[in-house]
């Protein structure tokens, strides 16, 4: 069974997924961060592929992406770094990034490398759903990768049903109409949106992302979905406190609620 499916089967709620950009803060910090996150109790990790023009990202992830590229990160280096990751790490791992670097690497080559590395799913925010269905689905299936799709507060019900049918493992539920970044709390409109989606009885579990930064926002998100994803707040912490074991552990402990 795909490790993402296994996780959602085993753990009923409070799933904590972390995003960071590969190659940030240092070129070779990638595997150390993943291993530490796994030891510290993260349920899942999304490995960000840096891109020069991350149009859906706020300033924190933009800067981490710039830094990673300056450090020399590329997909071929990333796959080399991850070669032995499955010797030590058993939690689900996903790759997340924009389409162009994947296209230049070659979709088949990318997916094959993902499978050989032990990657469980792929999130490509600028890959349109209809194009995925027409041109990408077979390749991702062949390499047993879950394609994770996003939904936003503006997504209409018909499209949510289609995303529910198509998204593999879980649906990435964007918490507000915004780029990535941190927020202190959720507005009544956001809560209304979480409740509305809860009422749709979707078959695919959801994780809430964008704007989750603290135990408060995490536990609130967990009331309305199986868990949540933290990106910018984690990257900010890496910038200010470093990627050593103690910093990462204390960050995870400050968020986790079981």
């Amino acid at each position, binding site marked *: 069974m795909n490790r993402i499916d296994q996780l959602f089967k085993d753990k009923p709620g409070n799933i904590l997924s972390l995003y960071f950009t590969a190659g940030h803060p240092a070129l070779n910090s990638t595997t150390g961060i993943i291993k530490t996150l796994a030891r510290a109790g993260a349920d899942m990790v999304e490995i960000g592929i840096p*891109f*020069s*023009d*991350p*149009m*859906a*990202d*706020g*300033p924190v992830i*933009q800067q981490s992406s*710039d830094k990673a*590229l300056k450090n020399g990160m*590329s*997909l*071929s280096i990333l796959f080399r770094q991850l070669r032995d990751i499955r010797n030590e790490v058993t939690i689900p791992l996903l790759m997340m990034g*924009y*389409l*162009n*670097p*994947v*296209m*230049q*690497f070659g979709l088949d080559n990318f997916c094959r490398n993902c499978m050989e590395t032990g990657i469980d799913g792929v999130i490509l*925010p*600028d*890959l*349109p*759903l*209809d*194009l995925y269905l027409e041109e990408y689905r077979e390749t991702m299936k062949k390499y047993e990768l879950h394609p994770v*799709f*996003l*939904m*936003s507060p*503006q*997504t*209409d019900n018909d*499209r949510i049903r289609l995303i529910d049918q198509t998204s593999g493992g879980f649906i990435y539920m*964007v918490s507000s*109409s*915004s*780029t990535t970044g941190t927020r202190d709390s959720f507005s009544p409109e956001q809560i209304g949106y979480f409740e509305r989606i809860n009422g749709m009885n979707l078959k695919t579990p959801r994780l809430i992302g964008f704007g989750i930064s603290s135990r408060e926002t995490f536990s609130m998100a967990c009331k309305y979905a199986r868990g949540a994803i933290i990106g910018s707040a984690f990257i900010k912490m890496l910038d200010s406190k470093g990627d050593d074991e103690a910093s990462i552990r204390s960050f995870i402990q400050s968020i986790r609620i079981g």
Partner: protein
Amino acid sequence: MDFEVNPKGFYGEFGGAFIPEMLYPNVMELQRNYLNILHDAYFQQEYRKLLKDYVGRPSPLYFAPRLSGFYQTRIFLKREDLNHTGAHKINNTIGQILVAKRLGKTRIIAETGAGQHGVATATVCALMGLKCIVYMGKIDAERQAPNVLRMKMLGAEVVPVYSGNMTLKDATNEAIRDWINHPADTHYIIGSVVGPHPYPDLVTRLQAIISEEMKRQLREQTGNENPGFIIACVGGGSNAAGAFYHYLDNPEVRLIAVEAAGKGIDSGESAATMALGHPGILHGSRTMLMQTEDGQITEPYSLSAGLDYPGIGPIHSHLFKTGRAVYENATDEESLEAAFRLTRLEGIIPALESAHALAFLDKGRFKPDDVVVIILSGRGDKDMDTYIRYMEKHDM
């Protein structure tokens, strides 16, 4: 051969709408409505009236006698430089602001490089009383300071962009991010034939007024609506797309687009996308792009800020691939020479962008009875600092 966009937004293998889910509703709203709006008789009436009374169209098609004598051929200039705000950009912004009003939008955003599209957007927002926010790379805002002041005088908020290399590509990213953050009330007026479907087609259709007028004007002046050559500069490629549009199915009309070679194709400082790029995805469409082997977008260079873009509209990638149009390039130096030649022979100071099209006159082979139309996409006021430096350097 079919050069129209297909229902999914592709020109052959290029185009499409590669957008994150957060933008899907905005882009779909535009996809579903743009053709109905453009074909609506009342829209057309309003658009045409504004083009005539406000922009000053039709722009003249001017037979340039001394330039023709110099090059021993028959050269006509399509005078987009005489439009209100000084360039072809306003053809698009007039049309898009009317589209935005019909969609009930109250807030307008735009990106700008040289500031021409920003000024054209700020102008139509003042005209319609709509809030206007223009994203401009910090470097561009510094080197095009007069246009920043024009936008501010017109009531627009100019937001300097500090991300990436702080130029047009980054301003476009920031405008897209603004749109993601304001999904309900905001229309994004893209300034060229780039971006997700339907923008390339929408902007092409709004700029197609250029070739529509040319047909009529050429028939009146030469007896034949088809010229031998149409030559236009390309960055994103909106003036070229508009100038080619009504001639795409006439293979006897040779279409020539001129990119900015900067300091030379092999100098590492160039913006000639067709010569240096390969297919990729940026700003919502699949098109030719200047990029590294790893798919990171590279920073282009041209002395001309309006051509300083690492991509090109997907319609051009398709015209390039099919061979329907030819993509040439001109260096900074060749374009500066061409700008002074036009100025001294015809008394017209062109924009540095348009001078790239003029520079092709030195490279093409034209017969004495060929009709050659050059799109003079903008006027040179904004480039005076550059031109003055050139005069000082060459003791003119």
